[in-house]
């Protein structure tokens, strides 16, 4: 919040090749001791607010899909360059990050697979166009047909198959790039649900 006076200067300890700087804790005024079992639970309140917002998630997810499709259409028209690749990557990357929150986890898995192709394929122009197209189509189908295919487990199966095909491709084209191979095979830090 607005500071009425300048904070105290940081405490500096100098050593041979580094300094340890301890800035004044300007945030400690926001810490408050409370009695145990205080009724107010900010996390529960925020979860409820998120639940109240969830009615909009399907619309949001559709607009994310539209953005993905537009980015892909630009690539089909202009080819890969820094801008078009960046737009497609960010669109897929946002779906990867948001899809679980919005209730479409399988779309997130397919989007992550697409991100990995865009990040680790040594030559994007050499990537089979169908491989990218199938990812785009799958994400759109998972969102569009959410109520039917999610229930039947088709969405998860579709995403898993796409990921397997993409991983096989990336392993093949990166066989002489050990750094990329290591990144491709590294486990995700995000825990499985």
């Amino acid at each position, binding site marked *: 919040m607005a500071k009425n006076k300048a904070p105290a200067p940081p405490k500096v300890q100098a050593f041979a090749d*580094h*300094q340890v700087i301890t800035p004044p804790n300007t945030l400690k005024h926001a810490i408050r001791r409370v009695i145990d079992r205080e009724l107010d639970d900010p996390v529960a309140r925020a979860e409820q607010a998120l639940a109240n917002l969830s009615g909009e998630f399907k619309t949001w997810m559709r607009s994310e899909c539209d953005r993905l499709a537009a980015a892909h259409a630009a690539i089909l028209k202009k080819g890969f360059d820094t801008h078009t690749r960046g737009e497609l990557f960010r669109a897929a990357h946002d779906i990867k990050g948001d899809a679980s929150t919005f209730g479409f986890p399988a779309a997130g898995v397919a989007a992550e697979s697409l991100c990995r192709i865009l990040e680790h394929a040594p030559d994007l122009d050499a990537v089979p166009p169908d491989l990218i197209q199938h990812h785009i189509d799958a994400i759109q189908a998972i969102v569009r047909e959410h109520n039917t295919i999610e229930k039947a487990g088709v969405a998860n199966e579709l995403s898993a198959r796409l990921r397997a095909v993409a991983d096989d491709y990336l392993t093949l084209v990166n066989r002489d790039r050990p750094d990329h191979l290591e990144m491709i095979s590294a486990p*995700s830090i995000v825990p499985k649900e």
Partner: protein
Amino acid sequence: MFRIDFNKLRFLVCDDNPHMRRILRTLLHSFGAREVYEAEDGATALEMYSHYVPDIVIADWAMPIFDGLELAQMIRQPDSKGNPYAPIIMLTGHSEKRRITMARDAGVTEFLAKPISAKGLYLRIMSVVAHPRPFIKTKNYFGPDRRRNTTVAYIGPERRNGGEAEVLQQPSLLDKARVTG
């Protein structure tokens, strides 16, 4: 037991995705925050950082113009006129270990992998408010102390000389990222 008075904190949220900004705003307001400023790219965020002097920055990684990593590097300029010490929470869809290392080396304070949860965000904010870390300035690094624990088994080169390490014991960023919530 401690709680945070969020209404005493000023936040800057930087994410190019309007839906994620809406979610972050909703969560922060639900926690009790009143002052939440939003930027949709790194350049705007840097300008707002100077103007509004936020207490805490929450930044996405992948953004146009310049990304969250570059934003962190620009904020962490030890000789800048602005505040180079504000906690930066990196919120990202990236889920690889090397990304955490990159974020840490850019001066990021906490790392929160998507999908976002209310509990995960709350715990990161609690961590930066209640347990601020000292800053380290070396020839090629300026940011929060990257040492979060000590081990007698360490056999690599020491990157710092001339003083005993005082370490605030905390889980590593990687361990924190692996915990759900």
